[in-house]
């Protein structure tokens, strides 16, 4: 029996450890710069790319071996990968001048840097010299489009909404409306002028930007002229020393953690997804804690114990077993359509038929998850309440405290560590959940974060990105999922790390509470 049970434990631990190891191993290696392999076939074709994996297969009934080469250059070849059988290979080289070029669009380019051009003329400046300023221009353009032009757009939209509000309130014939129309038109012309000015500035910057290009050549000589500003990162892959390799690795991690995704999420960063995941988990905790604690308080302290209460308890426990997608459907139907729709009718009639709250959003996704995890909190809290010593309650009553005073001042603080335990479990469950989110507010690419610098700063109605959904999207939904696979591991690693971090902080808080309220010595 000892062997059987022990064996079971060992097996389970090994499987979990294996899974973690796989994730950690693949996740950490994703960003390490790979060598560029040049393969010449017997037929005389040349291929250049990163070896992504190899496998055994059957060729004419005989066992054979082939390699998957990431040949990239999608804009020239029409695909990213190429299978090459070993028996076709005539020669393998590692050309020293081969470069890996990561681009803003079209994905990777592998090949050779032929020349650097300004205004179409070859110049003596190197790529490295021009790259920094070009990227600066690029970011400046992007920020202009996002911030200044976005500001004007927002102001115009605001004007339209104000007008509509007055129309809804007073009617089209009212003097207020007529006055408002005149005012709006005037203000709008001003804004349009501003818009045009900004547009001209952007066009100027773009034109300036387009002057700087680099000519890239793929291994068979076909060339492509590329704007320098749209190159994220480029390095001579076979020519890097260890320090440079580490540099590329670190810079990729940095981009991953702090930037927005590009190339249909398969490249770039996941900052919006990190942000969305953390924020959703926090909102969920904020919602589930009071809700669960109040419910547990009633069950344990106020309700009359009996068969009915036992039935309620069983129901609460079973709630944890309902498939999470069902919660998602409920969340969509109830929160998004009923509650959100109601809010829109009442507070945002001017925006209709575009829904504000009446569609998926971070608040509804968080509340749905709160619903999903509330049984965990209720059960944990009930246990913690039951564990508060009767002598403490009696002591409080004997001092003349009422029931509520006793609960608030003695029972709840004392039960707090237990409540935190429940919350930790709820967070661990909620942060890893994806299915219900997919229909209550998660999107593959959110244009804006739920928090920004515009009043009211917290936009709970916005849809958001989530690491769990990101994994699904990158790994299985993207057109170039082969290239996204390494990202799946990295994102998984990040998600696990994030949940661990959230849990650790909750555990830290719990231990401090425990020290304060429970830690007794005799």
């Amino acid at each position, binding site marked *: 029996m000892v062997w059987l049970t022990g064996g079971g434990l060992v097996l389970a631990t090994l499987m979990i450890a294996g899974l973690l190891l796989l994730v950690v191993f693949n996740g950490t290696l994703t960003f390490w710069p790979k060598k560029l392999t040049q393969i010449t076939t017997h037929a005389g074709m040349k291929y250049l790319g990163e070896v992504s994996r190899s496998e055994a297969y059957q060729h004419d009934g005989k066992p054979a071996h082939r390699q998957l080469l990431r040949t990239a250059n999608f804009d020239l070849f029409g695909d990213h990968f190429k299978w090459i059988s070993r028996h076709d290979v005539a020669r393998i080289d590692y050309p020293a001048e081969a470069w890996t070029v990561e681009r803003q669009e079209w994905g990777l380019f592998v090949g050779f840097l032929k020349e650097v051009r300004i205004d179409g003329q070859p110049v003596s400046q190197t790529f490295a010299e021009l790259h920094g300023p070009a990227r600066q221009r690029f970011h400046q353009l992007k920020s202009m489009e996002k911030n200044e032009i976005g500001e004007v757009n927002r102001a115009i939209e605001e004007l339209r909404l104000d007008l509509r509000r007055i129309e809804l309130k007073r009617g089209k014939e009212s003097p207020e409306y007529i006055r408002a129309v005149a005012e709006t038109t005037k203000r709008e012309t001003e804004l349009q002028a501003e818009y045009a000015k900004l547009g001209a500035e952007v066009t100027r910057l773009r034109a300036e930007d387009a002057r700087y290009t680099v000519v890239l050549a793929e291994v068979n000589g076909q060339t492509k002229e590329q704007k320098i500003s749209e190159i994220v990162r480029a390095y001579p892959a076979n020519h890097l020393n260890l320090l440079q390799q580490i540099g590329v690795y670190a810079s990729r991690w940095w981009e991953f953690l702090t930037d927005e995704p590009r190339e249909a999420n398969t490249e770039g960063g996941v900052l919006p997804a990190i942000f969305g995941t953390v924020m959703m988990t926090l909102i969920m905790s904020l919602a589930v804690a009071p809700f669960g604690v109040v419910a547990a308080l009633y069950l344990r302290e106020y309700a009359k114990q009996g068969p009915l209460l036992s039935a309620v308890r069983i129901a609460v426990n079973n709630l944890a077993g309902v498939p999470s997608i069902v919660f998602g459907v409920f969340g969509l139907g109830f929160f998004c359509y009923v509650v959100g729709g109601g809010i829109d009718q009442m507070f945002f009639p001017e925006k209709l038929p575009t829904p504000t709250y009446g569609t998926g959003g971070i608040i509804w996704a968080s509340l749905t998850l709160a619903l999903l995890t509330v049984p965990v909190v209720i059960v944990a809290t009930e246990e913690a309440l039951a564990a508060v010593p009767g002598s*403490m309650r009696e002591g409080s009553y*004997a001092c003349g405290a009422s029931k509520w005073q006793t609960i608030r001042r003695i029972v709840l603080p004392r039960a707090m560590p237990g409540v935190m335990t429940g919350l930790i479990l709820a967070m661990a469950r909620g942060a890893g959940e994806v299915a219900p989110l997919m229909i209550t507010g998660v999107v593959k690419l959110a244009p804006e974060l739920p928090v920004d610098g515009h009043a009211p700063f917290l936009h709970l109605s916005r849809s958001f990105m989530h690491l769990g959904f990101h994994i699904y999207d990158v790994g299985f939904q993207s057109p170039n999922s082969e290239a996204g696979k390494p990202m799946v591991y990295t994102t998984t690693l990040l998600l696990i790390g994030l949940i661990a971090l959230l849990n650790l902080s909750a555990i830290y808080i719990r231990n401090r509470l425990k020290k304060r309220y429970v830690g007794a010595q*005799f």
Partner: protein
Amino acid sequence: MTALLERPMKTATPTHAAPPLDAQTTETAPPVPPSLADEEMVLEVRDFCLWYGAKQALFDLSLKFPKGKVTALIGPSGCGKSTLIRSINRLNDLIDSVRYSGDMLLNGASIFGKTVDVIELRKRTGMVFQKTNPFPMSIYENVIYSLRIDGENRKSILDETVERSLQRAALWDEVKDRLNESALQMSGGQQQRLCIARAIAAEPEVLLMDEPCSALDPIATGKVEELIYQLRGLYSVIIVTHNMQQAARVSDYTAFFYLGQLIEYDATDKIFTNPGKKQTEDYVTGRFG
């Protein structure tokens, strides 16, 4: 058995003279063997019966507790001492199955009357339990708990209450530098003295103690006993104990209960040296089954 027979009588005599006390308390202690008939009464129990469901635990109790004195309740386990003391502040109300008849009067005011506000009643009494039960908060907050729930927030009053109560509970010197630390970090004996400080903070009309030393080691017990002895005159104390020496050491009067009935109630000296009933004698001399 004979040792037990001797010891209470030996210790009973010096009870009123020996413990080192400050002058004031010694003066209030009566020089001659006291008599219940001379005492002013704080609490009167009238024909009190109590049932746990169908089981009767107290039978027609009638007795009066003197003001400013320490009265011990003794008797074998399960005879109803705790039940009686927990009836005085109606803590038994928390148990659903409890029913009672008869009444008690605290300084003339009914305890079990229909219109009595239980919370107000409990504020007029203080209680110390067998199991030390400091609250999960700082030492300071523990002491002023009953003031806090009354909404008292004036710092001067709170500070003064904390110092006075801890002084009287003989704890001030030990904790005055760490009033804001958690009460749960203290030793068992300190915790119990803190519970006493908490119980006297609101100046209760009667201080109830249910075996306050039974969970403490001998040194802590000694300190708490000395403290109880010093509280006489300031408070009317009713203390349950199953330890005869303790009853003899700390109390002025002793009531002996058996199976929910009051058997004998008299000055402690008398109960331990010259009991009026055979049952009492058997019990205090340890001859009891």
